[in-house]
């Protein structure tokens, strides 16, 4: 599993960085910087929660 961000939809709410700090940091304008690559198993649940919490549906989980 991977997290993926649609940068057009993202409006920098920043909830994702709170819910998935293992993989997401915010830049100085509040937009997420994603660590690339496959999610380790133990953070998949956090990633799912972060994607569900995203108010603009910009953050999604994708396979492969």
């Amino acid at each position: 599993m991977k997290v993926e961000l649609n940068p057009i939809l993202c409006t920098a709410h920043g909830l994702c960085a709170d819910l998935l700090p293992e993989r997401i940091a915010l830049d100085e304008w509040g937009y997420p910087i994603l660590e690339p690559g496959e999610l380790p198993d133990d953070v998949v649940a956090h990633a799912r929660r972060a994607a569900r919490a995203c108010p603009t549906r910009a953050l999604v989980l994708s396979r492969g």
Partner: protein
Amino acid sequence: MTVAIEEPRTTSGSSGRLLSGLTTDSSVGLARHHEVWGPLPGLRATALIDEIESAGLLGRGGAGFPVARKLSAVAAGKGPAVVVANGCEGEPASAKDTMLLARVPHLVLDGIQLAARAVGADRAYLAVHSGSSAIPYLRAALAERGREAVGVTLGPLPRRYVASEESAIVSWLNGGDALPAYTPPRPFERGVNRRPTLISNVESLAQLATIARYGAEWYRGIGDRWEPGTMLVTVSGHRVDGRSVERRVAEVATGTTIGRIFTAAGLSLRGSDAVLVGGYFGSWLPAAQAARLPLTHAALRGAGAALGAGVLVALPPGSCGIAETARVASYLAANSARQCGPCLNGLPAIAGAMNALAAGAWDDRTWPALSRWLDVVPGRGACRHPDGAVRLVASALSTFAADVERHRDGQPCDGITAVPFLPVPR
């Protein structure tokens, strides 16, 4: 210094192909076009794609993607296809597509008909920016040709840097805004009117029209072995006599060194510190290094640059590379599609730091901030606009490193008062 003019040049009689019909300052009309090139060849779709494949024609819009592969992908799509000829030339330092469209329109229009035949298209669009100086010539050329196998609609797009991006053109032709999309359906599967769509640069189509007539072997008879043929370049720099700065479009054999291209265009690299290669999404290279580089995608990639759409700009003696880059960075920041946060916020920040550097108005926080922005901004937008802007600025900081030191010490060069050189549309 005088204002830039566009004057087509060919490097030598043998390498002038696309421009070989030009005799005067005016546009090549249909009668003259037929005299030089003959009528449209009667090649069938598969034979045409095979010939383009054997020729090894690479796209001339910037990415250098093999044209035959695109044709095959669109031809394999479901139902009738659409051809979009991209003549938008969003790059302000490039003039070759507009020159080609204005002066040799029939070769491009031939290319559109042939590409439509190759991919099974029943409609075609010729996309240019609104206000393009080529429009009257294209209208005249279309009128001269009358009714053809595939109708061609001339579509003026909004004048914006990112509007010529592929997904932006498709969106606009589908009635939406001319803005890039994040994950658009691939145009060769589902583009204009949800049909398989070929989007091809106008020079690529003109090259295709010559290959359709004379064949792959002829095409490969000139230029680099792996990236053969000729290509149009836009060369800007000062004249050999140093009296003015000019911009010229030249047709050169691929693999010609950048130094020879300047000479052939009647321009000089003498006294220039650096050459901007590949346009505003390109890179500054030290002039001595650039002069020796052959014009191929492979050679320029090897030097950390990119050929792009064939833009070469020599920094005039006395100009400041940092100030010039700062102005272009401001232009690119203002031309963001304003859709993605990192671009919308990052490019103005980067441009601001570059302008501060140019003016010598610098404090201790600016440098770490600029380094961080150059690091975090690329790769996070829906399109490549922020990546290109960052590439340009990063190359300026490295190629003009000695100047950067002086500017940082609060001693900007005299060049910041020089007449602005790189064109920045309002």
